[in-house]
């Protein structure tokens, strides 16, 4: 995926800002990358290069760390991050069915982002809410006892929120 010039600039500035804090001890590497990801939502190559230079290590080592851990993303996430819990309890209670319901509705596969960047779909390791299985984490909110029908319901409420926000925005502009 190609970043726009603006995205590149933001990524470099954000990363440099984060790097102004910690020293170059390698123990700071992962916390730094976590901060970059938190700020940007992903860790683009330009950010990895900045980080590698700061820690004085080959850029491929940063790339190796980023591609090793599940948490790191190389591409921007959707505005709404849908994470399907893949814990045992969720699996036995039909997490795959839930995953397929999202895939069908959003017309993307796990690991992908919708073209309008509204939604991205991920699988996530057990979030420890096994008693609420199957569980979906939408952004930071844990939703328990999901069914395909509830997937439709959640999507519907996003649409509604979006419309309301747009309507409000419209009114604001009108005033």
């Amino acid at each position: 995926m190609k970043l726009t010039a603006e995205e590149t600039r933001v990524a470099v500035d954000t990363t440099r800002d984060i790097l102004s804090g910690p020293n170059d001890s390698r123990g700071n590497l992962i916390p730094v990358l976590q901060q970059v990801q938190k700020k940007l939502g992903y860790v683009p190559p330009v950010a990895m290069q900045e980080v590698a230079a700061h820690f004085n290590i080959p850029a491929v080592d940063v790339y190796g760390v980023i591609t090793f851990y599940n948490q790191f993303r190389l591409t921007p996430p959707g505005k709404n991050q849908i994470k399907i819990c893949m814990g045992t309890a969720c699996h036995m209670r039909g997490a795959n069915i839930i995953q397929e319901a999202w895939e069908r509705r959003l017309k993307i596969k796990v690991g992908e982002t919708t073209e309008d960047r509204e939604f991205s779909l991920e699988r996530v390791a057990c979030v420890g809410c096994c008693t609420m299985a199957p569980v979906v984490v939408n952004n930071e909110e844990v939703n328990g006892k999901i069914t395909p029908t509830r997937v439709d319901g959640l999507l519907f409420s996003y649409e509604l929120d979006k419309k309301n926000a747009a309507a409000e925005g419209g009114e604001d502009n009108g005033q």
Partner: protein
Amino acid sequence: MASNNQAAAVYATLKEEAEQNRGKLFEKPLILIGAATCGRAAGALKLVEEINNELSRLQLEANVVEVGCMGHCYAEPIMVIYNEGFPPIAYGNVNEGVGARIVRDYLTDGDPGYEFALVALEPNDFFPTYSDFPRGIHENKIVLDQCGFIDPQNIEHYIATGGYSALVKVLEADPGEIIKTVKASGLRGRGGAGFPTGLKWETCSNAGGTPKYLICNADEGDPGAFMDRTILESTPHSLLEGMIIAGRAVGSEKGYIYIRAEYPLAVERVNQAVQQAHEKGLLGENILGTGFSFNIEIFQGSGAFVCGEETALIASMEGRAGIPTHKPPFPADAGLWGKPTVINNVKSFSYVPHIINNGADWFKSIGTEKNPGTAIFALAGKIENTGLVEVPMSTTLNELIFEVGSGIAGGKQFKAVQIGGPSGGCLPESALETPIDFDSLTEAGAMMGSGGMVVLDEDDCMVEIARYFLDFTQKESCGKCTFCRLGTKHMLDILERITKGHGKPEDIELLMEMAARVKEGSLCNLGKTAPNPVLSTIKHFRDEYEAHINEGRCPSLMCKDLIAYYILPDKCERSCDACLGSCPVEAIFSNEDRIKVIDQEKCVKCDSCKVACPPQYEAIVKLSPPSEVAAREQGEGVK
């Protein structure tokens, strides 16, 4: 000894203050709401909001406190009310409407709403307490004792209930004495392997090299396990206290808590706890004026199950991919940055203050000689009362599942219990008398692991569960060593073809052969234990493997490729369209007799229709192998 007296005096002041401040809460009606992640997933935060609204609407005075998890997750959201004239009462399944109603009736009319009550928390003449239920009889809460009753965001609640008194005790004690006590208690590491904690501390204490480090492994990655999360979210100070004591014992001034990325609330709670402990002088430089310093930092994992392995955990703290290394050297000799490092699980550290306060003999009086203390289990899956339980070691699986957990949900038949996550195994009914302890479970072919227990019923396919775990370990394998990287991949491929109906008769032997080699040849415990779910299911449920392979049939009707949905024509009500409306892919149509029929080509087997079909009809069934559908249709004349 002067400084010890001084520490004791400082602590006495802290405790008095804490008791006073906490006591004030009880001057008004006190409402506790379980707001750990599990409670939140069930809507606890909305409940808090609604209750606050109701209180202000009715202009009632009461204190509302968000607490951690009491362990009764099946009944989330949970609310506890302390009100004069009645014993404190816990309510379960409190949705916003019910919550508001209980508060209204109880605080205005004095009606405690027994119809919503789970249990009373103190003996009384009105309502049963925990000890009136099998669960209460078996449970013996040590680490979980305060979970769900104290405010995890307020250190004073911990101190007021005796917290940090063990630390005061050890501050002036000889570090060797602390180790001696922990050794004498027989405490075994609760991370899974059950290595004696005291011995680990002693090794680290004796190892040359400074500084020494302490790491709490809170990278609880076993799917189906949430004990550590609950402790971190509900009583974070018991972990901190245990760590400071351990630091004092081994001569370390620096501890880290490695928490997995998937637990944001736990990270928040622990950060808060660390800060508050600093403010009270219980953590940091010169603790309680004794000259002993200990600092704790939080390191967040980045999503890699293998980092639960201690050398991988260290690699990730050192800024590298979480890849295990050969042992020896063990971390207690050469760990973080090559320095002696003690790595213990959340639960192991959390027992320590209790052992210091009550003595090694007390701890040994619980459980068995070789497995003293309690076992903390997360009960999940097809069990009636899911949640977190703490029972003495040697409690049997039967007692745990059928008495503590109240048996299988929905009147279904018990099939197996999966213990120990991806490293563990599935035990069948015949193993239910196995006592829960490190050695017995390993002997039975499972593993204590860190304490996840998923109960499986007749609808769960044992080949599928083996495939699920292999899929998990294969995805989480670091990829360094040959056996784990490629062995688990081949095993997964075989299991996948079996669940898809393409298994070959020789596959079972091939799986067993491969499993034996992967166990023997892998570098770390992730690989060495990865075949366990496969071996245990083959051992106990070989017939299910054979049905998949030889007949293309999934006896539990779970494997999607081996089942089809079918609408029984004589049961279909005809004028009801529930299934048709529920189908997300328009695979259901009405035939000329208005009987609903499924277009098998279109069906995605999402189960929606079966759920939608009203229970009085039960017209939709699953058939395996899918060829059954054609046979039935022909027999029953469905067009």
